[in-house]
């Protein structure tokens, strides 16, 4: 009898909370689930006092690449130290040698060794001016990733983003670590929303020179070309990773629809005939499906459909504002931005909207996530320090690293892999 009474009491308290639990979905916040590989890094040997380094030294660039990569934990040591490497399970270490050549260039010999045996796994030589040294080290580092992980690394990839230059938003491109920034647009009107053309040949972006948002493309070193001029107010470009076709939004008289177009022929057609407004399209890695945002529930929510516009499903159900989804390169997860109490934060979830993980929190606005082509990292923009800057974090939200310095930098988009890696 006592037991039944206890059960009743239990039920009275348990049942309402069970109902309450239905409309809250459990969310993980920034738990590091990454498996990283410890790796030793030893400063490169150099003739005493002969090299005056203009920026970071080679082993410092290696260390930054390794820490950013989401694949390694650096065990730093100023010389080879087997006890240290072994204690930290660093089975490999990177070091090298630098000498100045008669023409002013630096010869960099970069090595990857096995800690225990000191067997040489990988050796590369670069003869470069100091300004190009960072890229040489990136190239070597990607070879290390290939050797130890069997994957392509992202140290030689780039980011396109929007930088406010003399008060006007311009599209710029920089190496993935924020160095070597170069300005792509030089306009008196706003440029924004850059995405990479196939093969990293150039960028597609939006400009306001006609006083209306319109898509343009520009190959690197080439001229700017307007796109789909027969359509009004075009924006939100997404390049098909297989065909290079462009999916984008066009707004006519207050109604926004998705269109698909060929940048070479300039032809475009409506992608889906829906009553709601649609924007922020994103392709799946094999271009078989499309993520997009629809306002048919009032606020923005993320949906997915086949590339022929069939089989539409809603993906996000938690919260009132879920926008700008992008598909992870491995195809298993979606990154998106959600607004809560007026602040934007980055989340990932499984393709059916389950298994939600919050990647950013308590740090201002965090927006515009973009996957690294190897799927290990996410770049985004945040105003956590007051001004908007670009950051890189691991795909689980850990290890947030700022990569831009001054001014205001937003809307990063990661390049594709570069097929030819130039030292």
């Amino acid at each position, binding site marked *: 009898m006592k037991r039944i009474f206890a059960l009743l009491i239990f039920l009275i308290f348990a049942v309402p909370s069970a109902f309450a639990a239905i409309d809250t979905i459990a969310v993980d916040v920034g738990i590091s689930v990454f498996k990283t590989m410890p790796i030793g890094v030893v400063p490169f040997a150099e003739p005493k006092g002969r090299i005056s380094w203009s920026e970071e030294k080679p082993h410092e660039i290696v260390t930054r690449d390794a820490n950013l990569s989401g694949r390694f934990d650096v065990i730093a040591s100023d010389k080879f130290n087997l006890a240290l490497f072994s204690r930290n399970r660093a089975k490999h270490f990177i070091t090298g040698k630098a000498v100045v050549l008669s023409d002013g260039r630096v010869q960099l010999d970069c090595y990857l060794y096995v800690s225990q045996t000191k067997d040489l796994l990988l050796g590369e030589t670069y003869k470069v001016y100091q300004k190009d040294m960072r890229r040489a080290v990136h190239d070597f580092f990607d070879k290390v990733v290939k050797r130890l992980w069997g994957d392509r690394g992202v140290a030689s990839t780039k980011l396109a983003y929007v930088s406010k230059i003399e008060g006007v938003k311009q599209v710029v491109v920089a190496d993935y670590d924020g160095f070597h920034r170069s300005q792509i647009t030089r306009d008196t009107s706003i440029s924004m929303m850059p995405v990479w053309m196939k093969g990293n040949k150039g960028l597609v972006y939006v400009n306001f020179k006609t006083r209306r*948002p319109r898509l343009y493309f520009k190959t690197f070193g080439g001229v700017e070309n307007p796109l789909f001029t027969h359509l009004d*107010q075009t924006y939100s470009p997404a390049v098909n990773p297989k065909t290079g076709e462009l999916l984008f939004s066009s707004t006519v008289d*207050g109604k*926004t629809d998705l269109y698909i177009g060929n940048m070479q022929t300039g032809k475009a057609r409506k992608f889906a005939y829906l009553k709601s407004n649609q*924007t922020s399209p994103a392709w799946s890695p094999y271009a078989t499906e499309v993520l997009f945002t629809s306002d048919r529930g009032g606020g923005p929510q993320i949906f997915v459909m086949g590339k022929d516009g069939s089989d539409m499903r809603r993906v996000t159900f938690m919260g009132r504002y879920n*926008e700008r989804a992008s598909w992870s390169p491995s195809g298993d997860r979606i990154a998106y931005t959600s607004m809560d109490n007026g602040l*934007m934060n980055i989340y990932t979830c499984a393709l059916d909207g389950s298994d939600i993980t919050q990647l950013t929190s308590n740090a201002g606005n965090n927006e515009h996530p973009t996957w690294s082509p190897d799927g290990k990292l996410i770049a985004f923009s945040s105003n956590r320090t007051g001004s908007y800057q670009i950051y890189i974090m691991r795909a689980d939200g850990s290890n947030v690293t700022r990569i831009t310095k001054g001014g205001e930098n937003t809307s990063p988009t990661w390049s594709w892999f570069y097929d030819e890696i130039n030292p």
Partner: protein
Amino acid sequence: MKKMKMLVLTASFACLALVACSNNPPPETEPAAEAPAAEETATAAQPGPNADSLAAEQARLEAERLEAERARLEALINQIMSEDVYFDFDRSELTEKARELLAQVGELLLKEQRFTITIEGHTDARGTEDYNFTLGAKRAMKVKEFLIAYGVSSDRMESVSYGKENPKVEGTTEEAYSQNRRANFRVNIK
């Protein structure tokens, strides 16, 4: 704000151009008809200072009239361009206040048939660039629909969304946000 000033300037230049062109449209033919008569009397009597002063006087009156017309149009254009319509967060419905204001704009547009307008929709800084373009477009469209219902012909109106790219007030306070969730007008003369 700078852009606003520039718009006002372009609008007033447009006025000047209009006034210059409208020198001899139908309703204003009287001074033109008088002119030859004045010339006749001038040649019959003494050609000289008298006729000159008469013509000068007429030119002065005409210039004054044009100046008054220009000022009137400029005032109207400034009035329309200063009438911003405000919206609630993530909404595109017109508030009661917005309707009152739009009725005044509609009245002006019905009176001045030569005016054409561009309706610009804007959002506050919160949210994504992409969704804010669609939201700004919805706001501009609601304004356009209201004015069509008021009797303004749709081919005199064009709508465009600036999303969150053209805030009126910088800042991250609710005060700034509420000022930026708006639709405003650009005026041209046919």
